[in-house]
């Protein structure tokens, strides 16, 4: 049973969460399959963009509460286990991946499904999609990077409101608050996301990877440290083949052909 369907075409790896009957919620097996596919995305240089979406009407409903590891009907479960074993490595790997990661949120994104989407580099949502920080209603804490991403995306006041109330946020509201990149009509989501992914797959991936790392680093760096980091990354970017190509193409007034290196 494939809970993760992956497909590589034209430099884009499309990764579809595929448990539609359970709103693509995570169980351990699905996590393992996802981890395996991510390894391929990390190692394969021809993959220059990762696109994550959900099968069916939902994007991802977070942790599957029917999974035996989190079943509260017996002894108290160790929820830290799945966070430590699956969610944290997943978020760390997405953040470290030196290529753009797009989330195409096709429907409801709840709990870890919502915070997973927010952990992607670019989020495009269908107009009917919803983001639900459902953790607080179960007595839990937003995981999958939720407490880190929310205040950085929305500011503390909105982060508090969202996380403490656990209310449903529409895609349009999320867009208005600057939490996601774009909202499109439902029937346009797939095309819009694919177009963006294909665009990234032709861009200077090495440089894009550095931009991403620099933005992450800025979350904890002082201005001083960040200026040093910009110097270092610019030094590296300036030695890339794509920089050479970009400048030559610009001077020759022709379109650039980037290799991602």
């Amino acid at each position, binding site marked *: 049973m494939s809970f993760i369907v992956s497909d590589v075409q034209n430099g884009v790896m499309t990764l579809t969460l595929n448990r539609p009957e359970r709103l693509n919620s995570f169980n351990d097996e699905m996590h393992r399959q996802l981890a395996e596919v991510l390894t391929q995305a990390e190692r394969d240089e021809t993959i220059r963009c990762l696109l994550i979406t959900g099968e069916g009407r939902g994007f991802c409903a977070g942790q599957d509460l029917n999974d035996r590891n989190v079943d509260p009907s017996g002894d108290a479960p160790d929820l830290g286990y799945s966070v430590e074993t699956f969610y944290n490595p997943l978020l760390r790997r997405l953040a470290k991946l030196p290529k753009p990661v797009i989330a195409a949120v096709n429907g409801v994104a709840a709990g870890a499904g919502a915070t997973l989407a927010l952990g992607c580099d670019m989020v495009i949502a269908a107009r009917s999609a919803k983001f639900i920080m459902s953790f607080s209603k179960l007595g839990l804490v937003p995981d999958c990077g939720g407490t880190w991403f929310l205040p950085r995306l929305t500011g503390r006041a909105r982060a508090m409101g969202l996380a403490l109330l656990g209310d449903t946020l529409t895609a349009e509201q999320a867009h208005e608050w600057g939490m996601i990149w774009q909202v499109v009509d439902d029937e346009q989501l797939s095309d819009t996301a694919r177009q963006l992914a294909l665009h990234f797959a032709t861009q200077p991936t090495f440089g894009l990877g550095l931009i991403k790392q620099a933005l992450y680093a800025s979350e904890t760096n002082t201005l001083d440290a960040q200026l040093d*980091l910009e110097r*270092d*990354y610019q*030094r*590296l970017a300036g030695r890339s083949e794509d920089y050479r190509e970009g400048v030559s193409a610009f001077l020759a007034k022709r379109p650039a052909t980037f290799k991602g290196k």
Partner: protein
Amino acid sequence: MSELLSQQNGRALTLTLNRPQARNALNNALLTLIAEALEAAQQDASIGAVVITGNERFFAAGADLKEMASRDMPATLNDPRPQLWARIERFPKPLITAVNGYALGAGCELALLSDIIVAGDNARFGLPEITLGIMPGAGGTQRLIRSVGKALAYRMVLSGEAIDADRALRAGLVAEVHPAALTLEYAQKLAVSIARHAPLALQAAKNALQQAQNTGLSQGLLQERQLFTLLAATEDRQEGIAAFLEKRPAEFKGR
């Protein structure tokens, strides 16, 4: 190809551990090569400082376990390794390690033995000996605690768990952290700039810093003053001060 590559850039010599198939494990043969290269560099007046590095993924991931496994107690008693480490430690010129990736066990101990550690942001330092039923045997328990303090040293030695570059920087184990692709380049830059200084002054200063680990404060201060006095008899001291006062670069001769 040799298991230890060497390349000179101005007055800085770079030694590259090159046993990629063994994750740069420091067996006796490789330690011998390092000792010999450093002894040659000691005699070579054109070399002012040395950088030791590995590759992007491994600085050195430990000792050679197969070599170690074959040694029983009597053989370990007469192991040539401590002599090899002592020869490396006797190198009197500035010794910098540029660490990318894993510096574990003996690899971590080699970094600890060096004067300055420059780390890549992907570097990991650890002493996992305990997980093998042994313990650090080349300075790991002694040098680590002197640089990072009790809390972290016990944590690392008894758990065998490694720390990342950021933690190592905060703990005072490494002097600087850079993007991995720039680690060696920046370490070499540092070596080149250090190697511009008067060789005898570098040697005396390194000696004094080493004494700080071996003696009490009052004895250390005494030895520092003696070394300081010794430099007063050098031509390079006159040149250094004169050049500063005349606002020109100094030209040191190593005398």
